[in-house]
């Protein structure tokens, strides 16, 4: 169940507890904290490491290398209803070769095996969902302060050398998911909420009307500067401009300290 309790937000947004499909949840857990996303992708030739997203370096860590070795060793040995884990290269911690043909096997994992696997990763799962909820809570309820997208972006550039300010910031933005063509872009409605902080941790939620549903939690591999993680807001919606996609939410204490002082 994610979230554990209902979160409400300025702008009338709401995130109610809902079941997350087991296969989808396992898929995200293994791809992000356990690092298979990095190993299964293509890159410019450099060796990809399991912790490229860096879930072992945030405070507190969601996973450590020792935990990963232990968990993947157990997953590799699982047998449920005659099925074994179909993930290739489970034992790899870095990799530079071609991606596997089947790069999202968890989505098609038999329920019996996924259920046992869920028990093996339960501790990581709890930490992963706790980070997700914590990020949303920091801009939820009375904590959320609404600011226009343009003003926030400009202010962030002005704060580029104020590491303390950037490190204390979480931003919620509303936009639309990428589409496959310009024509679809032009028609896109607000259907995505992105919540991000400067260490690159991001939660994305589907938006339907004003109701949100968890989509993914991942860590955007850090760029050269903390700003790069904060400026990449949810893509603005072209077809339905208005309060939703033009307004961001930031933590109220942050706004009072760093935004208000920039008011003329």
């Amino acid at each position, binding site marked *: 169940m994610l979230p554990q309790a209902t979160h409400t937000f300025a702008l009338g947004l709401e995130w109610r507890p809902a079941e997350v499909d087991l296969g989808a949840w396992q898929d995200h857990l293994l791809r992000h904290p356990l690092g298979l996303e990095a190993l299964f992708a293509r*890159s410019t030739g450099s060796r990809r490491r399991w912790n490229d997203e860096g879930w072992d370096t945030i405070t507190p860590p969601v996973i450590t290398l020792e935990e990963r070795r232990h968990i993947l060793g157990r997953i590799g040995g699982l047998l449920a209803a005659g099925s074994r884990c179909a993930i290739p290269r489970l034992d790899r911690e870095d990799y530079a070769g071609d*991606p596997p043909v089947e790069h999202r096997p968890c989505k098609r994992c038999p329920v019996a095996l996924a259920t046992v696997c869920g028990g093996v990763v339960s501790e990581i799962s709890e930490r992963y969902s706790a980070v997700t909820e914590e990020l949303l809570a920091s801009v939820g309820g009375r904590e959320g302060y609404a600011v226009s997208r343009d003003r926030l972006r400009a202010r962030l550039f*002005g704060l580029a*050398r104020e590491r303390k300010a950037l490190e204390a910031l979480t931003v919620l933005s509303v936009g639309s998911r990428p589409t496959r063509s310009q024509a679809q872009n032009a028609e896109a409605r607000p259907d995505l909420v992105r919540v991000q902080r400067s260490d690159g941790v991001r939660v994305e939620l589907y938006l339907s009307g004003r109701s949100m549903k968890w989509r993914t939690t991942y860590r955007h591999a850090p760029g050269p500067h903390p700003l790069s993680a904060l400026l990449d807001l949810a893509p603005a919606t072209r077809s339905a401009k208005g309060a939703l996609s033009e307004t961001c939410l930031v933590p109220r204490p942050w706004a009072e300290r760093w935004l208000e002082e920039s008011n003329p």
Partner: protein
Amino acid sequence: MSPLSDLQRSIEDALRELERVPRAPWDAAFAAMVVEPIGDALRLELPVPTALLEWIEGWTARELDEVATLIRAGLDRARVPPSFEDDLDLAALADVVRRRDLAESARLALQRASLGRTRRIPLTALPELRGLAEQLHVLDELLAKTAAPELLDAVLEDRRPLSLGRPWPSHLHAPAPSTQAELRDTSTLDLGALGPAPAELGPPDEVVANYVARGSHRSWVEGFAALESTGELARRLLETIDAFLDPAIDEPVSLVARAWASRVRAPRVAGSSSGRRASATTTASCRLAVLAPQRRAASPSSGLEPRAPRELDLGRLSPADAHAQLTVGEDHLELRVASETGLTTLRLGDHEATAQPHGIWAITVGVTEAPMLLVAEDAAGDRFEATLVFEVAPEPDAP
């Protein structure tokens, strides 16, 4: 507001804010962040605050390479999904394409910084910057194997206007470039591969007028004209150019606009599937009607004295960093080209220019109606080429 206006405003806001941020002490991560909006501005030909430009032009080779290293590290962490099973894979692709586009801007700004108004650091002295260009090429090859150009173009989203004139996504599906110049010049590519451009990305009237008169915003104007399915901008451009050239109006028309009109009016390229015409590096022929000043009567004792030479502003020789002026004398033509970052070549017919003080290059030729090839190439390797045909007519006597 159009996506372009939004993007333009956001770049201008960013640069205005960054101008106020203290630049000392040196912080490579901060510098790596600053070069992105500066590069964005350079790509859209927006003004960059002088303080920021002077700052980046003051970076040492070691500092330039330190910034390039950080940009490379960020690009190195970009992950291209192996396939597009669902919208999460599409989002991952959008992320890598955005990173690649930001790196393009950063690379351009670093290149500009290495070619300051007062110095020129060769690429051989900047191994990381050279490595960045190569890394972009490797990533491009990877993207080309993964996704169609239309898809790459779509996921660029709000940064799409930056690529209108130099559409690196279409570059990915072109034959591999064999030289650095080809690598840089995407203008020979089939712009039609990207599909039509949405109307709201079109240049406003003042941008069109600046392009026609001064050659500014070439990549935006010509890029949009090539992609627009209705051909409306191309029609509007031709009408404006013709109107400006009308002796009754006699407004300046830039060489790039003349060259574009010449290419557009040229016969279609046989076998072209898109029906589009060959683009920018085709040597266009520009007809320049020049009025040679006549000697006029002076005092009886001195006989005849020449009239003041006539000046023609030929505008920016985009994509080269060069601005040209033509002086028409009684029996000679003088081409003067100013360049902030410097020219490696300026040639008109058989004549080659040498650098003059204050960043001016000049060539003087006798008045002739024979076609002459003009080549201007700047220190970054960006090149303008057009064949000039002067149609010399005597200036009518003043009434």
